[in-house]
């Protein structure tokens, strides 16, 4: 009796062990990649921000000097401000417009029109940012661009889309919205489809009009999508790089220079590896704080069923 129990125990144990071995085998590629390309680099990246290192000679430990220098670095502070403003406008534009386009599309009865509009707004999302930036660089030229030509036909003066500081910044935001609004539209459309139709039917029975249905049912029940959109839009916007790098190269002056652009130049142009690493840490901390704050505040306004 005891023998049998012991035998089955060891069998169970060996089964467990086999399952565990299989488990580690199956996660091995992902785990290895995670260690080599994420965990080790993240830790050394954080550590690197405490060193002065030009890539070729030995690194010098400088404590928090890089961060102190960053707080006095006028260019960095300027790009931080640019990035924050870009994130604010691009996020509100993308998320706000995306929500209203989705509500609009959802209230249309004709299915073919719905499908067409959804596709139309989503197309730019699949085109690479580089191609989008090159295309708009061409269309938005001040004297020979098509856009300005038609504006002058409408009696509007030529707009220095890319050559004035204020307009270059606006152009970059507008192009970002052009490219990404369809993505957020899709997120909101999914949110809208998840709203049970009984709610609207009940509201109709109670005699609620279009506006009441919108403000009392649709918008409250869309808050989870809104919350999710705000979080990913902000995380993405703070890392913006490609469109400015291609379209304006940060200019005119530093009007469209972003944190990642100076980070890239410090690291791979000037080989100030430690300094660049400290910029990445600042960026990470900002993104982390914003996300945590949003999650905290989210409890107050997001409507969970």
């Amino acid at each position, binding site marked *: 009796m005891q023998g049998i129990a012991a035998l089955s125990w060891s069998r169970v144990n060996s089964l467990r062990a086999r399952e565990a071995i299989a488990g580690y085998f199956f996660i091995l590629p*992902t785990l290895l*990649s995670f260690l080599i390309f994420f965990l080790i680099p*993240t830790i050394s990246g954080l550590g690197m921000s405490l060193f002065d290192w030009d890539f070729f000679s030995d690194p010098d430990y400088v404590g928090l000097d890089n961060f102190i220098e960053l707080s006095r670095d006028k260019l960095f502070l300027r790009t931080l401000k640019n990035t924050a403003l870009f994130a604010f406008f691009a996020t509100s534009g993308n998320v706000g417009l995306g929500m209203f386009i989705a509500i609009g599309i959802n209230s249309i009865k004709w299915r073919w029109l719905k499908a067409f509009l959804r596709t139309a707004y989503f*197309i730019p999302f*699949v085109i690479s940012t*580089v191609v989008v930036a*090159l295309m708009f660089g061409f269309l938005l030229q001040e004297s020979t661009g*098509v856009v300005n030509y038609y504006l002058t036909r409408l009696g509007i003066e030529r707009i220095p889309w890319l050559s004035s500081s204020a307009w270059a910044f606006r152009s970059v935001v507008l192009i970002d919205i052009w490219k990404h609004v369809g993505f957020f539209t899709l997120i909101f459309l999914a*949110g809208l489809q998840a709203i049970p139709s009984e709610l609207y039917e009940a509201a109709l029975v109670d005699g609620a009009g279009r506006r009441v249905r919108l403000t009392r049912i649709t918008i409250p029940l869309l808050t989870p999508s809104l919350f999710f959109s705000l979080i990913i839009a902000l995380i993405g916007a703070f890392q913006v790089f490609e469109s400015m790098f291609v379209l304006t190269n940060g200019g005119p002056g530093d009007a469209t220079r972003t944190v990642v652009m100076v980070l890239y130049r410090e*690291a791979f142009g000037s080989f100030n590896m430690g300094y660049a690493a400290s910029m990445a840490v600042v960026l990470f901390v900002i993104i982390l704080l914003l996300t945590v704050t949003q999650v905290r505040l989210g409890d107050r306004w997001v409507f969970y069923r």
Partner: protein
Amino acid sequence: MTIAAYSYGSSAFQDKLKHNIGAYLTNVLLALPLILGSLLMFLPLIWAVSFSFGQPHEFFKLPPPVIPSAFRLDNYHGVFERVDFLRFFLNSVFVTGCVTVAQLITCSMGGYAFARLRFPGKRIIFILFLASMMVPQHVTLIPVFIIIRGMGLYNNLGALIVPYATSVFGTFLLKQFFETIPDELEDAAKIDGAGFLQIYWRIMLPLAGPPLATLAILTFNSSWNNFFWPLIFINSAEKMTLPLGMIYLRGQDGVTNSGVLMAAIVLNLVPVLIFFMIFQRRLVEGVTLSGLKGA
């Protein structure tokens, strides 16, 4: 009685008609700004196409022709004269193909383990994986650069493949899917003496078609458009993928803001739009799914 019935029917009919016209009008009113907005989405693409067929002097003609005077292919010849565009394209196909296939394998393996196998440390590893999605890639940039150089992959297409051979997002996506598969299926196979590898290969994978397709399309799209990584790791023209190749082309003589650049843009757009047309539904599902997961 008949009269009453008739008049009743008529007013219902009129009400219905009124309601229909009302609904029709609100539909049109709602749709109009949305349709105009959608034109804004298409217009830049249409212009790019028309300029790519145009001739240099037409760029300064007013009004700029929406339909060029003749469909000249000069600009397209110009692209192929200046750079090895086909090479860029093939490099992109190769890199994207490898990344996509690799992710399908690694993510489904990882997803299966996290969903259906018990092993010590599973929870903590998974939480670490998820946390990594929050960290911007720029934190890891310089160390990864050093690691890739150390692997001898600098200026090598491998640099664009190896770091992307798996993804946390994909693993998560498939874990969610595999968790929905009923235990009975697996138990039956176990009784028949199937090992874990066989269960994964014979039972799990064949069921995972839809989420794998979603993952493939999302991965394909992001790998095809990846620019930052090639910018850092590739420095010779014959190793460039399309996005970086476009910047290289722009740097050539007389290309900035010319019809040649537009032709190259159109050459970029065509495969992407074909891809989009074929996989539109899956792509939309994928984005929606990733959105719902977060919400």
